[in-house]
């Protein structure tokens, strides 16, 4: 390795070649690992999705596979955020029962909060869960169902009960509990659920009747 400075010409080639060979080996290593784990990872993701949908459809009876009835609502739409919104629809004997919206609410304290909002055909909330967020540990993350039961208060609510004007946290004169120290977070969640309910009210038939084929065009 102790080469004279004049040896720069071949040295560069040697360095380049060494790096190229190493890069090829490393890429191969990653490719093999990916091959070995890909199926399992896909299975995990599917299972995780099914598991996460479950609590948002509590008390709802349906006979189709929720993850197979995906509809993606492309922007622009009147739902929170500007991203495409996936909706999982469940039916019983082909009659619409409920839908779960995957909402990306942009107004969290630290970026977007991804929520699952389950809504029954009648317009009642069947359950809300947080998919991901970057809220402050110990404050904003208390919205997670594994930490507190804050999200439980939304079950069975609708635009009628509480009345539309009371869809806010108590601090803003609304009907919902906030979490002390996490007003921004809880406000964002309440707003997102309300907006989803309003959208659902106006587009209910479209949501349940839209063909599932539309999902194949989307790469969600």
């Amino acid at each position: 390795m102790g080469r004279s400075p004049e040896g720069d010409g071949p040295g560069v080639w040697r360095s380049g070649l060494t790096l190229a060979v190493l890069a090829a080996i490393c890429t191969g290593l990653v490719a093999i690992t990916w091959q070995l784990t890909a199926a399992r990872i896909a299975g995990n993701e599917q299972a995780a999705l099914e598991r996460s949908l479950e609590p948002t459809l509590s008390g709802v009876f349906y006979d189709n596979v929720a993850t197979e009835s995906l509809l993606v609502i492309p922007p622009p739409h009147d739902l929170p955020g500007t991203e495409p919104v996936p909706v999982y629809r469940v039916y019983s004997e082909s009659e619409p029962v409920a839908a779960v919206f995957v909402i990306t609410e942009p107004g969290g304290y630290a970026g977007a909060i991804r929520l699952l909002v389950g809504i029954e055909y009648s317009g009642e909330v069947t359950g809300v869960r947080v998919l991901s967020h970057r809220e402050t540990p110990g404050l904003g993350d208390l919205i997670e169902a594994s930490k507190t039961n804050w999200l439980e208060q939304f079950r069975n609510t609708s635009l009628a009960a509480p009345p539309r004007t009371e869809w806010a946290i108590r601090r803003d004169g609304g009907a919902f509990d906030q979490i002390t120290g996490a007003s921004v977070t809880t406000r964002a969640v309440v707003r997102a659920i309300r907006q989803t309910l309003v959208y659902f009210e106006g587009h209910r038939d479209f949501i349940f009747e839209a063909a599932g084929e539309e999902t194949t065009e989307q790469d969600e």
Partner: protein
Amino acid sequence: MSADGNTGGILASGLWDDNPGLVQLLGLCPLLAVTTSLVNGLSLGLATMLVLGCSNLLVSASRRWIVSEIRIPMYVLIIASLVTCIELVFKAYFPALDASLGIFIPLIVTNCAVTARAEVFASRNPVAPSVADGLAMGLGFALLLMAIGAFRELLGHGTMFYRLDMLFGGDPFTGLVLADGGFLLALLPPGAFFSLAIAVAGKNALDSRRRHHIGAIARQSL
């Protein structure tokens, strides 16, 4: 860095004398960010330890072919592919853990402790001591992460072993509840700095006491 070749010396160096977190203050970003619970700290510690052991193995095994001018890019390539493989394995076998540690698994690539051990130790020593060094350094780092995680979890949450199921499977485990509520600051970023400061100060205090003690014995024997 005192690496006297024998396994005992390597272990002592990794765990205490040259502990990457306590003494070299390397890898502070993950150390401060993920140690909100014992399980998080332990898991990232184990992942880092695995990377350190494997990267030292690979670097040491290929040290003959390493061209000194481009050794850093070569280390980065080796370490980055290793970490990618480990991330895939985590996604496949510990999905909950992967979700919990998030970006900090891929970010092991940027943990200076890994590059530092490749440069300082593995590139100049045979395979066996290099692996021992990587594992010892990793263990030292993991123990520190675990200790800080346990400390912050206990203080901030009042629990212990919260979400242990992420490592060993089973039903979601809410942890042993040892106290009601907690001191929130411990879980926030400042709490991480305070905890690390306490750990470093504690180590220095122990060391200086030991030195004092040895000095006293030496004086007596004169």
